[in-house]
């Protein structure tokens, strides 16, 4: 939509701007010919359409790339189709004038594939380099950069001569360098181009240099190899940083999944097999919140996660409360029965969700601020992973404050350390038990909100996290929140350093083996609790 608006603005402005390389051919018959063209013919036609140099064809190319180009069955005339309330609205591909609504059966969509999209991007890049809109020019330079072709070289150079914006100019320099490499320019010019691309750095530059390495002039071979070598060396360094980041990110997911368990299992000592289902319920709460928002207040969608947090906390907290009151409180001090009972509860919860929502995945959308990525040096960081890391640390420290600084936290610690003494001091221990279990479950629910952003929301969601959660809590040291934090992050980093060299499958096995060995050596985990509480 945005692209189309921009292109429309662009058309209007382009009447004023001097058109470049206008060969004077009317693009209309070429566009109409798309109706009957197969993929190979369409590719040729796109080249011819671009060669007209007429910027008016850009909206048609855009629509083609997006799959919005149709031809009318009655007369094979090609139109841009816009889905509206009354079926499809047809728009003239060149003038942008409306040709009235039509039914979907009266037109046929003109098929497009990846290859054509690439060709269109390159063609469009060349056509929009002179656009008055800075953003369009930048995108055009990127498009030329991504698909170097000798045809675009002249266009880039002409655009460069007129460009005033420094950022766009730099990008165009890079685009020019890429095109020079694939053209038949002089060796000196190519040597400069290699330098420019080398300073660009990153995987794309590496790909571009590698792709010409077989066809390059022998005298440039050493320049090229040294450029490739230096980019690769730099990339290797970044790969190390990237591994640490990936490890922290995986660790933050483990922390999220385990943090609720650190309370129910770690602090209370309940072997809670239904922990994963609490995470799952949190994810389904997010789904429900998003469904309501989609139907009633679509504008709030970017806030859906913030709204889902308290909802998920309350829902899962309440479920946890009920489970504690109805099942677990009868089983304190009998770990085997607790395990069996919570396992049963987890099966019941799973099947209940399956009966209500069906067994298939539910779509939980990512708000715009959680989609995409941003580059940091030679690596890319995805927004969703970054926010999840921030989020899990926030939860962790909030929980820590609640446990250490609030009256409720004091009661909770008193009860877990010495139940009878706490009871004698007037603390209602059953009530504290129930609230603690509800808190642990609620935290698991909040984790579900975050995990719904990166994983499937299906009734099986919880199962995939339960083993990992226990692993983290046991490794970090039962009863110690800091242990859970350190345990989760170190397991994450360890995993991500093993993965590139031994593969994901073996990496996971090795981590498990290492944990088993570690537990043999230190049965109480990284941070063992000391004192009487251990024996109780």
């Amino acid at each position, binding site marked *: 939509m945005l692209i189309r608006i921009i292109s429309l603005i662009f058309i209007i402005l382009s009447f004023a701007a001097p058109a470049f390389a206008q060969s004077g051919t009317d693009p209309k018959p070429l566009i109409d010919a798309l109706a009957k063209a197969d993929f190979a013919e369409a590719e040729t036609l796109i080249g011819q359409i671009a060669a007209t140099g007429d910027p008016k064809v850009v909206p048609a190319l855009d629509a083609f790339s997006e799959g919005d180009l149709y031809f009318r069955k009655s007369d094979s005339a090609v139109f841009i189709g816009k889905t509206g309330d009354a079926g499809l609205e047809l728009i003239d591909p060149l003038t942008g004038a409306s040709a009235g609504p039509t039914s979907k059966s009266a037109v046929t969509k003109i098929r497009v*594939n990846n290859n054509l999209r690439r060709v269109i991007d390159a063609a469009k890049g060349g056509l929009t380099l002179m656009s008055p809109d800075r953003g369009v020019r930048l995108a055009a330079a990127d498009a030329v950069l991504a698909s170097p072709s000798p045809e675009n070289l002249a266009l880039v150079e002409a655009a460069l001569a007129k460009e005033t914006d420094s950022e766009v100019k730099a990008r165009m320099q890079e685009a020019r360098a890429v095109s020079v490499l694939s053209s038949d320019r002089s060796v000196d010019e190519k040597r400069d181009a290699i330098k420019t691309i080398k300073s660009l750095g990153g995987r794309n530059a590496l790909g571009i240099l590698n792709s010409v390495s077989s066809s390059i002039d022998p005298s440039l071979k050493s320049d090229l190899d040294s450029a490739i070598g230096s980019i690769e060396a730099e990339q290797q360094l970044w790969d190390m940083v990237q591994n640490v980041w990936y490890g922290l990110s995986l660790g933050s997911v483990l922390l999220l999944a385990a943090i609720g368990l650190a309370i129910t299992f770690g602090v209370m000592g309940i072997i809670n097999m239904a922990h994963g289902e609490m995470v799952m319920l949190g994810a389904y709460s997010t789904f429900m919140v998003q469904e309501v928002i989609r139907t009633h207040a679509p504008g709030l969608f970017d806030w859906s996660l913030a709204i889902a947090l308290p909802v998920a906390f309350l829902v899962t907290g309440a479920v946890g409360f009920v489970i504690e009151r109805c099942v677990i409180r009868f089983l304190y001090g009998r770990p085997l029965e607790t395990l069996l009972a919570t396992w049963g509860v987890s099966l019941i919860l799973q099947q209940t969700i399956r009966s209500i929502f069906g067994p298939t995945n539910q779509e939980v959308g990512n708000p715009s601020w959680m989609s995409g990525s941003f580059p940091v040096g030679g690596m890319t960081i995805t927004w969703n992973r970054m926010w999840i890391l921030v989020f899990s640390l926030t939860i962790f420290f909030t929980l820590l404050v609640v446990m250490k600084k609030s009256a409720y936290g004091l009661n909770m610690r008193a009860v877990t350390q010495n139940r009878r003494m706490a009871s004698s001091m007037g603390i209602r221990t059953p009530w504290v038990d129930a609230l603690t279990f509800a808190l642990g479950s609620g935290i698991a629910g909040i984790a579900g909100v975050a995990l719904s952003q990166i994983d499937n929301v299906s009734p099986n969601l919880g199962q995939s996290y339960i083993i990992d959660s226990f692993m983290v809590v046991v490794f970090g040291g039962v009863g110690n929140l800091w242990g859970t934090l350190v345990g989760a992050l170190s397991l994450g980093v360890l995993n991500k350093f093993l993965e590139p060299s031994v593969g994901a499958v073996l990496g996971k096995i090795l981590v498990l083996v290492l944990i088993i060995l570690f537990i043999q050596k230190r049965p109480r985990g990284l941070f063992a609790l000391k004192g009487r509480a251990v024996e109780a």
Partner: protein
Amino acid sequence: MTFTSSIGAKFCGALLAAVMSTTALSGAFAADDTIKVGVLHSLSGTMAISETTLKDVMLMLIDEQNKKGGLLGKKLEAVVVDPASDWPLFAEKARQLISQDKVAAVFGCWTSSSRKSVLPVFEELNSILFYPVQYEGEESSRNIFYTGAAPNQQAIPAVDYLAETEGVKRWVLEGTDYVYPQTTNKILKAYLMSKGVAESDIMINYTPFGFSDWQTEVSKIKAFGSAGKKTAVVSTINGDANVPFYKELGNQGIKAKDIPVVAFSVGEEELAGLDTKPLVGHLAAWNYFQSVDAPINAEFIKEWKAFTKNPKRVTNDPMEAAYIGFNAWVKAVEAAGTTKTDAVLDSIIGVSVPNLSGGYSTVMPNHHITKPVLIGEIQADGQFDIVQQTAQVVGDEWSDYLPDSKNLISDWRKPMSCGNFNVATGKCGGKGM
């Protein structure tokens, strides 16, 4: 963990015993003048996500057949059991369906593990199984009909498409670590190398079931793709791990224009849980897409939506395979005039029934079927746009590209009646069975 799972198993066992006794009871009350059909799909556990749909399709098909007057003048009756995604339980349930409920044929299974688990049961008790999911090949049983795609009906045409249309020179074979991806990748590697692709241009990579942290894998693909040659990913990633995989691809900005991914286990159903806008252009290879433009398909989709009372329900390839299998069985029973296994096994070979892509599928002597291969690109609405459709392809059970099986053929017609005939030695037997 053994401890937990054995307790879990016992608990499940008790539950299942209860279910079993109820089905047995309902069986006892059923009238004699019905033909029973077994439906063996997991309705609980990890595979319920995929298999529940197939159970619904079978119920719909049986329902429709009954509306048309049933079969041989009798009504069809579905006997649905739940093997709960537990492979040994599949064998147990299959035995129960055949011996206790006396079903005429069974439609079921999804994973290869479950099929391998029931295979000896069907051979021992001489009954018929229709298996509706794409699989790795390298198997042929007298009692099983494979209506899903064999590797040559899915994987190989997909790779051909990428090489020809997109000019792909470098391949990442990314899969979940179990039998289907491993065998398929073995076949694909042998095939690509036979086409002159260097070994250094093929990267094979496996991840565990339900894998969700794809950051390292995706950046590995990115790095592999920066060697200056057009790169594509061939994905045999199993169901649940796909959503996080595609999310990571989208977030890391790998577009189909740069590195296309062609998947063999991702259909309309899997995409239903995903925002597909960042995925437009990634591909899937199947024998059927919901977007197929054929009157018979439009009719099927309409019936399916009406049957499930859900206008948003999608159709997918295994549903078409179930549809073909069921109709072929009905036609074979009508031709044989009986539901007896041996008679049906004889009459079904050569039976042709309409498939949903507008053509006909024929049951071949190797118990596989003919069907066209469709390559589709993912669209923003979660559907596929078909970019290529081949002519009919005969399912090849023994791959021609693996040294162990290239001499084997299967022909269950008399007098050969052999699932692994070695054309080099001229003898029945050898690897496989």
